[in-house]
Each structure stands twice: as C-alpha cells, then as structure tokens.
C-alpha cells in the first residue's frame, strides 16, 4: 500500500501509568529506526516482540518506552504497524506524538486505524462497527455481543443469508431470462423440474431467510433498550397506588403519596442499578378525567413516558377495579405481553372472589406453559403478581417478576449479533422486502415483481457487508443452468 502514515494515541488522555501510541503506514518502521534506541538491539527490529528502549529526538531523550512492531499485512490495519507503550500523563504522550508528527506521520482521524483495517480487507463492515460498539459498550452484555460480531459472527449469518437469497434470486432471474417452452437463444434449466419446481424452492428459501433475519432483529430491540437505559414505567388508573409501589420499590419516599386521586401530575424518573444494567424507574400520573390545561398536559406526559417504556408495570387497585376493566386497560396499552407486568395492588385489602379466581387461572396457565425464560417463547398474557402496601409493604413478588423479564432481555441482548443501528435498519429493510416477496409469491404474481423485492433485500444485506451482490446472481445462473442456443 502506498499510503501516508498516521499516528495517534490509542489510550485515553489524562493521568495514567502508561499510554499506547500507534503508528501505521509505510513510514512506521523508518520512524521507529530513526527515533528508537533499543537496549542491546539494532535494526532491523524483530516482528511481534516487545523491545525496551528509549525514544530520542536527536540527542534528547523523550521517554523510556516498550515498542512492538507488527509487519503488514499481518497487523491490525494490514499495514506496517508500530505500538509504543510510553509513560502516561499529560505531557509525555503529547511530546511523543509531536515527535512522530514532526517525523512524517500525520495525526489520525477518529476511527482511521479501523478504516484502514477495513480498506485492507482485515475487517468487514460489521466487524468495524463491532469495534466501535465494543469500545463504547456500557454493559458487559453489550461488550460480549460486540466481541462476537468482531469475531465475524454477524458476517457469517449474513453471508449465509446472502448465499441463500442469491440462489433464490438466480432461480427467479433464470426463470425470466429462460423461455419456458424452450425458445432458442435462451437459457434452459439443468435441474430436474420434476424433482423440485422453482416456486416452492424459492418460497422455502425466502421464508427461511426471513425468519433468520427476524431473529437477529429481536435481539436488536433488547440491545437498544439496554443501551438507551431500560425504562420501567408504572402506569394505571388514577389513585391505583402507582406512587406507593414506586416508593416501596426505591425504598424511600420519592413520590408524594396521598389518598386523593391525581396526586401525581408529572412523571418522575429515578435511576436504579440492577447488576450492571442501567434502569430508570418512572412513576406516571394516572389518566385524568378532569378537563383543563394541567390535566391535559399531565395526560400527554404520561403518554410520552409510556411511549419510551421498555416495560410497563400496570398497577391495578383490585379493590376498586373489576377484571373486565383491567382487560380494557391492557387492551388500551397495546403492548406485547412480554413487556407488561400487572401489579395486583392492595391485594391484602380487597381481592374479591373474582380476582382470586382470575389470578388462579393465570397461574395455572403459566405453569402449563412451563418455566419462563428465553427458551419458553413469547408469553401470551402479561405476568400478574399480587402486591400489598398497607399491611406489609411487600414488593418482593413484583421485583422477582421484573427481574425475570430483565434476565430474558439480558440473554436476548447477549445473544444478539446486531451492534449498530445501521445494521438493524438494513436488516429491517431486508425483512420487509422478503415479506413483500413472499406475499407476491403467494398471490401468484410475476417473477419479475418477486425478483424486484428480493433484489431489494439483497442490496440491503450487501450494504451491511460493504459488498455488491449483483454479479453473484449471474454467476449462479451460469453455474446452475445449461445455457445455450
């Protein structure tokens, strides 16, 4: 590669024992040979072995450093790469950088080492994004996911999907550029149509890849929730006891509690740590029937909080609400069952027979469905837990239910291979295109329309890997079809 040479600090600035400075490019070795005096060693320097020595500028000593030399192409960037471990702090690394920049290495732009790794084929785009995700990870879960993508995990899945879709595309394209009744100058299929006809084969490929890509997206949602902060929102009717539960959960009197309906007008956010995940608890105002500017604003704020929620704790006052009313409220929430927990509040005060029966039935169903967990599939109904406040402020069952949900989410996020929004966006686009393609196939629409959609899906996936897949389709056609006059 005949490019310029870049140098930059690889570690954070500030007081520290050590700092690492990286130099990449054709001048890396000349610079090292000019300014590095290795103890007991002369150039040429050995590859990948730690050398203690002094960094000098003419006769002036800049620092005592350990230098490592990675010859290209077997280096991170694919170019000649030198890593200098200097002393840390405000002064020394800056002086070293000054020296390097004066010797012909220019300051690197943000992400430029990784960009070079990508350009030199050391990383694909998904891996480059994983590097970014890894160094900005806010939880161990996120870091683990990023590490798997860095190892090529996402690329493998996408490459498999692309291969399958290229096959589907080739079948569709071939059916268009082949005359079925065998006109001359066209292609003729080599596979045996009696064994497998094109339509079902394409249909199976599309369904399989759509499902595979959709699974990728599930984890992406969990990841996004955890990264943005997991928001648990207490919702429910006015005076249901949301604020009491909220306080009990926090273990202190954060929200003002009164027997009057509508005490809480605004929503309250409180951060909470659970393992290493960032959680925000939100207490909202119940739906206000009263008219007026305050009531309207209050309702709007509640809607906003709900829109941002990762999990809704629907608090219901069993003494004041019927099971039918709860069903209505849940329908109005309109959220997947896995994102709602029903807190049957003031259970100790007023759970009538109707509620007892309702809960018993729920628990029976839950037992029949087997243990909760990521393998258990999606819950069909929200988990419901009784809680009491007045007699003994016991929120342990609710806490256990929330933690169970968090564990599911955590494991989903951990299993995800999507570490950047761009990835989720492209995969969503591909999934939508595949869904449309399947719909067209079912309707019996023309192959040219189905091919239009699958091509859209392939383009979206190709962009993820920074790869164009158009010509691969033609290659497939030629390898699978005896084409000819």
């Amino acid at each position, binding site marked *: *590669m*005949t*490019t*310029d040479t870049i140098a930059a600090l690889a570690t954070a600035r500030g007081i520290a024992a050590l700092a690492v400075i990286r130099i990449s490019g054709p001048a890396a070795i000349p610079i090292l040979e000019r300014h590095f005096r290795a103890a007991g060693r002369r150039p040429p320097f050995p590859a990948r072995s730690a050398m203690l020595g002094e960094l000098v500028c003419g006769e002036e000593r800049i620092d005592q450093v350990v230098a490592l030399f990675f010859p290209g192409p077997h280096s991170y960037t694919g170019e000649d790469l030198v890593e200098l471990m200097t002393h840390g702090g405000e002064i020394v690394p800056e002086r070293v950088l000054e020296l390097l920049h004066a010797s012909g290495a220019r300051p690197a732009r943000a992400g430029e080492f990784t*960009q070079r790794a*990508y*350009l*030199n*084929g050391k990383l694909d*785009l998904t891996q480059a994004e994983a590097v970014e995700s890894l160094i900005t990870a806010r939880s161990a879960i996120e870091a683990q996911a990023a590490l798997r993508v860095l190892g090529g995990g996402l690329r493998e899945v996408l490459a498999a999907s692309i291969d399958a879709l290229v096959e589907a595309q080739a079948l569709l*394209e071939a*059916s*268009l*550029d*082949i*005359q*079925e009744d*065998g*006109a*001359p*100058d*066209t*292609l*003729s299929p*080599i596979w045996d149509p009696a064994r497998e006809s094109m339509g079902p084969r394409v249909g199976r490929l599309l369904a399989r890849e759509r499902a595979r890509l959709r699974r990728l997206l599930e984890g992406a949602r969990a990841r996004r929730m955890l990264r943005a902060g997991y928001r648990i929102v207490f919702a429910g009717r006015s005076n249901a006891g949301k604020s009491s539960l909220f306080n009990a959960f926090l273990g202190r009197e954060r929200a003002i509690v009164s027997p009057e309906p509508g005490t809480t007008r605004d929503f309250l956010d409180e951060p909470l740590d659970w393992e290493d995940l960032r959680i925000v608890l939100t207490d909202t105002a119940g739906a206000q029937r009263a008219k007026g500017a305050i009531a309207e604003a209050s309702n709007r704020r509640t809607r906003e909080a709900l829109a941002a929620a990762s999990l809704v704790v629907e608090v219901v006052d069993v003494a004041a609400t019927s099971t039918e009313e709860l069903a209505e409220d849940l329908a109005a929430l309109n959220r997947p069952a896995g994102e709602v927990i029903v807190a049957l509040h003031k259970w100790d005060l007023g759970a009538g027979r109707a509620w007892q029966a309702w809960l018993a039935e729920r628990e029976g169903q839950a037992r029949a469905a087997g243990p909760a967990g990521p393998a258990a599939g999606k819950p069909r109904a929200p988990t419901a837990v009784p809680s009491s406040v007045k007699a003994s402020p016991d929120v342990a069952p609710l806490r256990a239910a929330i933690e169970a949900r968090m564990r599911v989410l955590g494991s989903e996020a951990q299993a995800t291979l999507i570490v950047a929004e761009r990835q989720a966006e492209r995969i969503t686009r591909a999934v939508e295109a595949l869904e449309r393609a399947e719909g067209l196939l079912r*309707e*019996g*629409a*023309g*192959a*040219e*329309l189905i*091919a*239009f959609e699958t*091509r859209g899906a392939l383009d979206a996936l190709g*962009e993820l890997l*920074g*790869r*164009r897949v*158009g*010509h691969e*389709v*033609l290659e497939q*056609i*030629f390898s699978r079809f*005896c*084409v*000819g*006059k």
Partner: protein
Amino acid sequence: MEPTESQSQMSLPANCDAVVVGGGHAGIEAAWALGRRGHKVVLVTFDARALGRMSCNPSVGGLAKGQLAREVDALGGLMGRLIDRAGIHFRMLNRRKGPAVHGPRAQADKPAYCREAWRFLATLPSLRVVEAEVTEIETESSRAGARRVTGVRLAPPRWSRVEPGSAHSSGARRPDAPPPPGVVRLAGAAEIAAPRVILTIGTFLEATLFSGLDPRHGGRRGEPPAGALGECLRGLGLPLARLKTGTPPRLQRASIDFASLEEQPGDEPPPRFSFFEESPVRNRVLCYLTRTNARTHEAIRAGLDRSPLFGGLIHGVGPRYCPSIEDKVVRFPDRTSHQIFLEPEGLESEEIYPNGISTSLPVDVQLAYVRTIPGLECAQIVHPGYAVEYDFLQTSGLDPSLSVRGVTGLYAAGQINGTSGYEEAAAQGVIAGLNACAELEGRAPLVLRRDQAYIGVLIDDLITKVPTEPYRMFTSQSEYRLLLRQDNADQRLSRIGWKRGLLAEEDYRWVEERWGRIAAARRRLGARTVTRAALHAATSRSESEEAQTAVVSERDWGKTYEELLRKPEVTVEALPRLGCQLELPQGEWKSLEADVKYEGYIPRLLRDIAARRALEETVIPFRVAEDPPQSLSREARERLRLHRPRTLGQAGRIPGVTPCDISLLAVRIRALRKDVVKP
C-alpha cells in the same frame, strides 16, 4: 481484380465527415444516423452485398435482445424496420410472464435482410459505400500526447488469403458480380481524409477460424480477416484481448426429414418490431424442434481429442450462455439431451440453421453426430460449423459516448467492443453514429441512463466491466427492468431520437398520440366502477368456465376497473367481458395493462433512481480520476485510473471499487469544490 468500366467511373471521395469501418449491424446503424443528419459519410466494407449480413443465426430479437431492437427502432434506427420487412416467422417470447420480460423475436430471410439494409442506405444522398479494407487509421498528435483522427488508408480486400477448396472457403468467393450501383470497388491503395472514424469490424480483427485442429485466417466464413488494422490499433496504444464465438454447421434443407419433427409456428397475429411501420408482417415458414440423444453425445465425446477447444488451441473465452455442443456435453454430463431448433435461413434458401449445436469439431465428427439426431439421419452439411477467435478492444478505454479515449474522433461499436449479437451491435451503432453527429455538430454527446434504456445498461456495463466473455444482454442485468419494457421503448426514447434528428417528426408525433390514447383509456378505467350487474354476468357465466371463477368475485363490486386490472390474475383481455369497453386499438391493450400492473412499483423505482441520481450526476474531476485519494484501496485506485469513470455512479459499478471507496471519493470531490469556492 479488374474493375469494370462502370465501377471505375465511381470515384472515391478524397474526404468526408466520417468513415464507418464495417457494414454489419453496428456499421449500418452508424452510417444511417450520420447520413440521416446529412453528414458526408463513407462506409467501408469488404462486400457491399453483405451489408447487414447475419453471419450466425437467422433471427433478430429474443429475451432482452428484443427490447434492444425495439429501442434501436424507437430512436429511429434501422433494425426494427428491416426485420419487419425481412421477417418470415414472428413470436413474442415469455408471453406467459410479466410484460417487463416479453421479448419479440423473428426469423429473417437472410438475403432479404441484406437487400432491405441496402434499400434504406441507398436513400441517403450523402452516403458512399466503398468495397475495400481499412489498413490504417491515420492520426496526428494533438496537445500533450493525445492523438486525433485525420483519416483512413485503404487497400483492396485480400480475398486471395482465403484458400480455395478449404472447408471454410466452400462458400467463399471473390464477389465477381459487379457491385451494386453507386458502390466504389477499390482497385489500389488509397486514402480518405476524415475527422471521425467509427470502428465496427466485428470479429474480423486478427481472426482465426477453427474446425478441428486446423486453424485458418478468416473473419467469418468465406471472408478474410482484417489484418493490418490490428497492428495499427496496437500502435495507437489501444489494449486488445481475445474472445471466441462459434456457429453450427448449416444443413441442407432437402436432406432433413421434417415430417417426423415437432413444428413451431409463429404467433398470430405476428408481433412486429417497428413502432412506425404500417406494412403487413406475415408468418411464412415453420421452425422445427428436435433433440440430441445419448448417441449424439457419444459421437461428440469420441471426437473430443480433435477439438481445438479442448485441445488447447483456442485461448479466447467463449460465451457461457451460448456454449458449443461439445462444451455442453462436457460441462453437463448428466444431461442426456439438448434441444435443437431448425431454422430456415430464408424463403428460398436451401440452408437450415440448427440452433443449439454450434461447434468447432472436425467436419467428419460434425457429420457423425448430426446424423444421430432425429430428423437429421440423412442430413447433408452445406457448411461446417466453426469457432472464430478474434481480438476485441478492451472497453476500459471507452467513454460512455463510445468514443475511444486518447484518440479524438475515433469510435468503436459492436463486437469489437466484446459484445455478441446483432441487437447489441445495432444498439451501439446507433449511439456511436449519433455521437459522431453530436461531435460534428457541436452538441453534447448522447449518453442513455441505466434507468432509461437497455442500451444505457449495455454501454454502462461495457465501460465499467471489461467483458471476460462475449457480452449478451439479459433482463437481469437491468436493475430497472420494470421500467424498460419492449412495448414502451418509444415512450422512453422516441423523443430523444427526434430531438437528435434521427427519427422523423411524424413518427414522433405518432408516439405522442399513441401514449395519449393509452393515458386517456387508463383515466377511464380509473373513473369507472365495477357494477353488480357486470359482476353477476361475469360470475354466473364462469360457472361453466372454471378458469374465470378465481378472477372476480362479489368482493370486487365497487372497485374501479383499474383496481381490478391491478390484480395479478386479471388480464386486460378480460375487461370487456367484465363490462368495460376499452376504446383503444387492440395493439395498445398490453401497454395499458403493463402500466396498471406495475403502477405500485413505479414510485419506489423512481425514489431509488432519485436517491442514486446524486451519485450518477457527481462528475469525477480529471485530477481525482488521474490520482485517486491515497485513502482508497490499491485495487480501487488502479481500477479508477484504468476505467476513468465519468461519475461516482459509474465508479461504484466497477468491480473492486467498494461502497466505502465511493464515500471517500465523494468526500474528496466535495473538498475540492470548497477549495474552488473559497478564493
């Protein structure tokens, strides 16, 4: 080679505006465009009776190729009009699939096609046809290393090179017949001064013919190769590479037992190619189908040791989509049979073209395997099949206008650019011709976009990817296939053809009227709703006609007829039965249907095109193409320097240039623009 009295009276012009080298499908289109614009043009060919000769299969069109032929016609080119007049068997391929992939195809009476080509060209007062060989393109240095065309040097064609009595010269004869009136037959070396030269020399460059292990020089059967020109092109620094193509043995019609074979009739009514012709087209012959069998394949395998293809004699790469029969037998050993179409070469012709068994095996092997095929048991070979290996111009050196970079005034079109097929050649011929006109007239070159025409796709593919096999058009090569239908080529291109002065004004007016009618009919469809009575009539009748049951149901009541037609299973032909008269000539029904069926996709395609337009319209400045940013990968930089793409869009289609390279290029170009603005 004594010129007769009348021929010597025709004088060779000393100069002209443009010389077209070659009279094949690219050459005649280029000459037509230049002549129609009134430019003084000289067409140089070995044999004036071979203008527009079909040297391989006797047909025009096919899937994607049909679209190309229609586009040539829509621009005002010759191909559609010629095949409508010379056609003897017309079909619309892929009729059972969506309208975007319908492709017209016609069998031609080969001699009639040449005659028609001559008739059209003879109407051009500013065209002179010269029988000669171009031995050199004369150039002079212009500024800084660039060269400029000044004319051509001519010699009489070297017919003597074709050895009499050899297999390939069986049809070879010096054209002893006098040339057509008005044609100059060159007797000695000469020169013509011209500022523009269009190269359309097909497979004639350094061409070698193979039938068995005995290669001969020759451009095609019976004609010598173009010898000296290759050296001249190399001398101009133009990179050449090698390709191969082939043709099957021609069979004697009387020796074939057609009675035992499956007939393939043309479509009724026969679909015509030209949007503008009124003359009737008629199916006048039948084609026949037969198949190879295990014994055929055995005979072929037995001859493989004498195959120039497998014996390593042929180095050029052949088309994978059109392999020779020996190639098919070797590559797909599981297949026990391949289809063969027996196509007449003309109404009067005694030759049959067996489509599907092109070959370069020795003549005795050809005869042996041909006679294993049903119907061909007693077949006589009139001309053996052969492979031709030839040089082509590496298209990385072409501009989208089809001018050759570094030699001002030089254009190249057709097989010389690595394509295969008459339609691909004609398409390039029109563009090269129109762009030579544009240069002469000081207008901007005509560059069709990928979303505008298959011609645009073809040329863009050529300049961004040097062919590694003869390039054939496929519909899958177009990402905007749904827009580029064979039936709307006139809507897409006729305005351009008219503006460029190739298509007659009245022809263009006709296109406007036609699409005006279709749009009006469509508005009526959108305004009328399906009545209960119409539905009832249709569904009650369908009790007997099961096929209709699925088409409409009670639920369609109240829909507009446009919505009804949008359903995949409803065809435009069904509308009258459903109570909607179209008030549109029947020939235009399918265009209406296609417009309605694809309507939902058009906005998305247009969005996609608009999104790409920024890239397609960002011109890469000369200094950036010359010296791409160092941050690009090495491969990308090499490719950019080689291809010199004009826009970022083109750059992005060059293999080895990644989307990331394109972003980096875009950044550099933006930075340069800012530099310009600052001071």
